[in-house]
């Protein structure tokens, strides 16, 4: 028993240290010019804790070690920041520009904040003085329609709705047709959260796409996958599946106001070429902001 207790204590100490490390910013380490093996190890841990994933971290660390060997005197923080920015700048998100009616579709797994994000996005576009219509396409989750309606009131935009359990493709069709008839430039369509492994639910997204195309052949003009910043490596398979089935064009990273860094977007962007359009940083109506790579990397590196 003694041995086990000893191990447990050691483990608890280790965790306490983790917690301290989380609180004590990474920059202390990154400010150092020459890092010894232990410090490099700690740096690697901190990057892993940002959910960048083993592969991305291995590559970043290899690169850092290489640079250190080559020049002997480099700023590790600047080197890492450069490397990460290079990746994030590979695929910038196109800004939303109003014109003829465009359909924006929001998809994602359960609980990532689709409805909230849609409300904020509606308010954001409305604040630019552009017409917006939102469509309550989540007809599955209890009270999702009421939730969107509340956001519609908050943002001051009309809500197209049907009853719970209705056909989401039909309501999407109605919304797009109505916006087109009224020449409203933006139609934002909410969808029910679904796990990317559920075939039948994923197929429903395809049906929504097809019914939108009956109204506007080029619709949906953008498909945003909403991703919770607390998500781990599963975010990659999520993005893969949603891109394949729903034609995702951009990511929106939510809940960045917590302690999670959302690092999984880095491998997603690299592998799937999906840019990050917006980030959600709070529960307020203004808490959706365009993605800023510099600020995001500073967050990852704990600046």
């Amino acid at each position: 028993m003694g041995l086990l207790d000893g191990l447990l204590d050691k483990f608890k100490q280790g965790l306490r240290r983790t917690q301290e490390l989380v609180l004590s910013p990474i920059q202390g380490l990154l400010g150092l010019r020459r890092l010894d093996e232990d410090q490099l190890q700690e740096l690697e841990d901190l990057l892993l804790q940002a959910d960048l994933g083993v592969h991305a971290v291995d590559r970043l660390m290899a690169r850092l070690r290489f640079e250190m060997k080559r020049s002997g005197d480099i700023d590790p923080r600047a080197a890492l920041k450069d490397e990460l920015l290079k990746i994030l700048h590979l695929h910038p998100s196109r800004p939303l520009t109003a014109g003829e009616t465009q359909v924006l579709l929001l998809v994602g797994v359960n609980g990532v904040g689709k409805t909230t994000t849609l409300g904020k996005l509606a308010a954001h576009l409305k604040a630019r003085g552009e017409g917006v219509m939102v469509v309550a396409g989540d007809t599955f989750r209890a009270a999702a329609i009421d939730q969107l309606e509340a956001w519609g009131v908050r943002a001051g935009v009309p809500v197209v709705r049907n009853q719970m359990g209705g056909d989401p493709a039909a309501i999407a069709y109605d919304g797009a047709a109505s916006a087109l008839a009224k020449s409203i430039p933006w139609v934002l369509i909410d969808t029910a959260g679904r796990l990317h492994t559920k075939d039948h639910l994923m197929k429903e997204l395809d049906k929504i796409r097809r019914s939108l195309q009956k109204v506007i052949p080029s619709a949906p003009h953008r498909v945003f996958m909403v991703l919770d910043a607390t998500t781990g490596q599963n975010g990659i398979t999520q993005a893969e599946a949603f891109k394949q089935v729903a034609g995702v064009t951009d990511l929106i990273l939510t809940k960045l106001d917590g302690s999670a860094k959302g690092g999984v977007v880095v491998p997603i962007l690299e592998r799937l070429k999906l840019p990050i359009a917006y980030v959600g940083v709070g529960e307020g109506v203004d808490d959706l902001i365009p993605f800023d790579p510099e600020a995001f990397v500073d967050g990852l590196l704990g600046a």
Partner: protein
Amino acid sequence: MFDSLSDKLSKAMKTLRGHSKLTEANIEAALREVRMALLEADVHVQVARTFLSRVKEKALGKDVLDGLNPAQAFIDIVHQELTAIMGGQVDEHPLNYASKGPTVVMMVGLQGAGKTTTSGKLAKFLKKAGRSPLLVPADVYRPAAIEQLHIVAKDAGVPSFRTEEKDPVAICKAALKEAELKGWDTVILDTAGRLHLDEQLMEELSKIKATCEPSEILFVADAMTGQDAVRSASAFHEKLAITGVVLTKADGDTRGGAAFSIKEVTGQPVKFVGEGEKLDDFQRFHPDRMAQRILGMGDVLSLIEHAKDRIDEKDAEQIAQRLAKNQFTLEDMRKQFQQVKKLGSMQKIIGMMPGMGQMKEQLASVASDKRVTHMEAILNSMTPKERANPNLLDGKRRRRIALGAGRPVHEVNQLLKQYLEMKKMMSQMNDPKFMQKMQRMAGGKGMPGMGGGLGGFKMPF
């Protein structure tokens, strides 16, 4: 994207065949692979490191038992350790109940973890277990959250608390009084989702706790959570002293390493797992299965229990008896399909099977739900007489059945062929010699981590 860990380990330890002891040198590569697997499964870095040093200590100097290769011996140690940490044996009683008055269960967690849905699932679970729960909406912030709980409660067939109160603490207090008055023995408080960094809202939870004195405070955690699980879980635990964890959205393809991290930092057991859109998709937590899943070894045990739960025992027994007498008919096959459908989507079933890494996609397309539906349609288009006596099915009848089911004739033929194969296979299973052969196969190589048996097994769909 994840290869099964057992495959990787087998590769990493290939050179070790014939070694009779696990040594520092010969487990190094394997340790690296396990670390990789844990990190890919979102186990926290520090948790993974501590775990690995523990495994290393256990493994060093261990004799490799006869019949095992070093990789298998090593996996065994890893699996045992992980299972032990995840909670060892399943507790008989999942919840602590108050000795006097209504038991209060408080649900807490981050936004979007699934607290409201989980509250409903728990209520239904407890109702089935003979309790009389009351659902209490205490999330006054998220638009329509209260309405959502009322709807969920209705679906679950349990009452939900309605009040004009706007303050969460007051709502909970009033609900408790009502429960005492009306004799509800379990009160489930669905609190607002919040960031653990939000001091003010954490304070509100503390007040609810102080006022209602819950017997259980369950931390609801998304199975897909990454490294942040450690931070949020420990923050909630420090503030509220949680008593257990409910893991949600575990029906996806996430490895669920967060469960391990949370267990480690809070020391509190994972009590339940939510895995599906329906209120019934809620189960007791099984540490050994979770350990296998984190390591990428599948979850065949869960599948078995899942099946047991939903399959009509009487039907199953009848089919088994008929099998024993070699009387398996198309009617039995139809019943089987109906039961397969009860199990949920084929994807779910396949997802639970171990060692299915690469086969998963292939299988998913073959064993799609549609196919089962089509076959069932064909069977439904037969008369009871035809199902009882497949010999009746001549060309004319087959054409009629195809028309009735709206499927081409060759699918009818295909189904009959499969029926004959199933019948043959099943009669072999009644033969003791055949079963011995199967067991030998299972002991041999087969697919790693899955006992090999399934590999040679032809599924009826």
